[in-house]
């Protein structure tokens, strides 16, 4: 019973997602791209880098990348902590 209900909800959700995909703007033709246009035209002069993606990653949206590096740092600390030896001195 519970599984059937779950399957029903799941099918509904799938249809919902498909509906979202259908109603999205056509693929390959982004309607608004002022921000990206700015990056493409100004990256070489402002960040002095040929690679526009890198100039976004480290300059225009560099703060996100700090967060991203922090996520990795957090995960490494978490993994090392979760798998540390048991040495509880009580």
């Amino acid at each position, binding site marked *: 019973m519970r*599984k059937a209900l*779950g*399957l029903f909800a*799941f099918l509904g*959700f*799938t249809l919902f*997602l*498909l509906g*979202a*995909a*259908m109603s*999205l703007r*056509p*693929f*390959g*033709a*982004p309607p608004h*791209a002022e*921000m*990206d246009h700015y*990056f*493409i035209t100004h*990256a*070489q002069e402002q960040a002095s880098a*040929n*690679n*526009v*993606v890198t100039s*976004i*990653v480290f300059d225009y*949206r560099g703060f*996100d*990348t700090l*967060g*991203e590096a922090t*996520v*990795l740092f*957090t*995960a*490494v600390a*978490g*993994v090392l902590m*979760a*798998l540390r030896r048991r040495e509880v001195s009580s």
Partner: protein
Amino acid sequence: MNGDIIAINFPFIVVALLLALGFYTIGFKRNLIKVVIGVEILEGAVNLFLIALGYVKGGYAPIYTLAPKKAVGNMVLPTPQALTLTSIVIGVAVSALMLAFAVNIYRHYGTLDVTKIRRLRG
């Protein structure tokens, strides 16, 4: 018209199907490793979605080093690529931690079946 939109928006439909697959795996699989794989499928679907958003028909990679002449003024959107890069790294971090927990759970209970390890119910 309807057939048209399916053909044009095919990448987005693939994303929707992948998302559904990921949710199915998380919701209906009993093995913890499979649940982790489900989260990874979701991750891949969202990354694919972001990259697909940035595509411009006939566009070139947004890199000026030794690019072909036609590339100037005809590049795909760079922001989704940067976002995807961030989200991939985050996905790696999440899956590493999930697997570490899975190892701990296996060490403790000797099983990865979620129905058997749920002692915290109530």
